[in-house]
């Protein structure tokens, strides 16, 4: 591609040196396409280009093109339709997009257009949920009913043959209960452009991530005669997992604790560890410690499986450690995911957690062959993440935070709530559903939400 002098000048103005500017311009970038990129990105980009990494370049190009599309002038149709996005009409974005697409296929007069818009608005308002509709209970039932059709079978492996993932009803319960850690935490790690097409690099990265314990590298022997622990390392395992004898020795020295002596015989690959006191108790405790030591990789990741999916290498892990994994070199930090929702909330934020809840719930249901409208799941996810943290639906979360005593008593642990409330002299304002049903009054939902007021005669 011919290098545009304008591009080169513009890039030089931004602080890039002549050669790099030339490289970028020759690769087909223009100043506008690179506008959004910081200086660091551009310097890296030049390096990538010279290395000949086409992939990354193509990707950045794609995203650059998305960010700076050709500025088409807005037609009167565009302008009129975009008004509908704002109040009072407030149409959803997709609706306006679809309208734009359909209407521009035909010739319409202004009057005609207004008629179409009126009709669309009316149909939209009719399709909307009515105010005061009890959407919570509807969502609960819409998810609960297919729930009764879910089997409790958890032995079915989802996707990867070697990994065991909780499925079906137990998983759905885990999600709704906002469990800190799922019973089968699993991560799906995507790799960056450098690693995703290279099998060896992917394998190497796999060992960087998978936790290598002492037992993986050889035999551990407790020798009561000499009051020592002996580790016989296996050369093959050391090489496969890309860890050296020295590294093992150092790690064990560091983690075995104070007063412990580690002697190494590099030729025979034997490590002799002496506890600080020559007692059986110390020896056994030391043995326990040595068993637990993680020599390489991320603690918690017990297994990594590399698969080729859609032409790229992906890693599935047994165990989840999102923060550590995302900061490792070689992984794609934008696509890597986990099924541990609390980790996602912690590392990526509450909105990401909301999306994760929806994705997990949806996939759990559809894996069982059940089709629940996403709106019900959105309802749950929204309620769970409303206050900035992931709360369970049950008594330690949303249900438990009910202001009404009767409501909480009707939900779970009845007597405790009534007792505490009586002691404290609490008042129940009877605003919610449960308490009004108990007392026998109309509830504050649906028709009961509306109050009629008489205006008097002759008005």
């Amino acid at each position, binding site marked *: 591609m011919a290098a545009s002098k304008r591009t080169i000048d513009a890039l030089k103005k931004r602080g890039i040196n002549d050669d790099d500017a030339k490289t970028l311009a020759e690769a087909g970038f223009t100043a506008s396409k690179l506008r959004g990129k910081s200086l660091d990105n551009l310097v890296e980009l030049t390096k990538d280009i010279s290395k000949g990494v086409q992939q990354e370049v193509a990707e950045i190009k794609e995203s650059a093109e998305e960010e700076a599309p050709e500025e088409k002038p807005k037609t009167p149709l565009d302008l009129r339709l975009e008004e509908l996005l704002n*109040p009072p009409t407030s149409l*959803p*974005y*997709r*609706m306006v*997009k679809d309208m734009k697409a359909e209407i521009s296929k035909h010739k319409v007069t202004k009057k005609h257009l207004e008629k179409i818009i009126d009709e669309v608005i009316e149909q939209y308002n009719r399709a909307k949920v009515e105010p005061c509709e009890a959407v919570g209970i509807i969502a609960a039932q819409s998810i609960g009913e297919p729930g009764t059709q879910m089997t409790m079978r958890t032995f079915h492996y989802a996707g990867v043959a070697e990994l065991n993932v909780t499925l079906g009803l137990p998983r759905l319960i885990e999600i709704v209960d906002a469990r800190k850690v799922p019973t089968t935490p699993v991560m799906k790690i995507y790799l960056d452009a450098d690693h995703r097409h290279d099998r060896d690099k992917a394998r190497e990265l796999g060992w960087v991530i998978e936790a290598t314990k002492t037992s993986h590298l050889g035999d551990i022997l407790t020798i009561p005669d000499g009051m020592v622990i002996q580790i016989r390392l296996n050369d093959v395992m050391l090489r496969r997992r890309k860890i050296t004898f020295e590294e093992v020795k150092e790690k064990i020295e560091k983690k075995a604790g104070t007063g412990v002596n580690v002697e190494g015989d590099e030729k025979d690959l034997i490590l002799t560890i002496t506890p600080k006191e020559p007692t059986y108790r110390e020896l056994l405790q030391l043995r326990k410690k040595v068993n637990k030591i993680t020599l390489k990789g991320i603690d918690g990741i017990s297994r990594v499986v590399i698969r080729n999916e859609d032409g790229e290498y992906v890693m599935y892990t047994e165990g989840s450690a999102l*923060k550590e994994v*995302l*900061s*490792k*070199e070689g992984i794609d*930090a*934008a*696509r890597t*995911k986990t099924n541990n929702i609390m980790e*996602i909330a*912690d*590392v*990526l*934020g*509450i*909105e*990401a957690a909301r*999306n*994760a809840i929806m*994705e997990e719930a949806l996939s759990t249901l559809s894996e069982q062959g059940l089709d629940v409208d*996403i*709106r019900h799941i*959105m309802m749950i996810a*929204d309620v769970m*993440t*409303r*206050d*900035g*943290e992931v709360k369970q639906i049950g008594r330690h979360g949303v249900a438990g935070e009910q202001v009404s005593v009767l409501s909480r008593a009707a939900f779970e642990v009845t007597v405790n709530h009534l007792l505490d409330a009586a002691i404290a002299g609490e008042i129940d304002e009877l605003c919610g559903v449960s308490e009004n049903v108990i007392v026998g009054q109309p509830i504050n939902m649906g028709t009961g939400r509306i109050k009629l007021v008489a205006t008097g005669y002759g008005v």
Partner: protein
Amino acid sequence: MKKKDIDVLKHELVPEHVVMDDKEAERIMREYMVSKAQLPKIKESDSAAKQIGAKSGDIIKVIRKSQTADRFVSYRITIK
């Protein structure tokens, strides 16, 4: 220990977060007829909130991708 700082907003699961200026925020609250206390909340320590530098009291505009409407704008008030 940190090899690289994670750009949280780049992740697939994280929607766009923007701090709103006071005028815009007031307009939104008037339109929806809500008070600050009624808005959904987001913690100041939230990864996305931290990255855009939101402080307690700021109202964040969250532009989500939606399966039902392609795009949906929601709001959260920064707390604590």
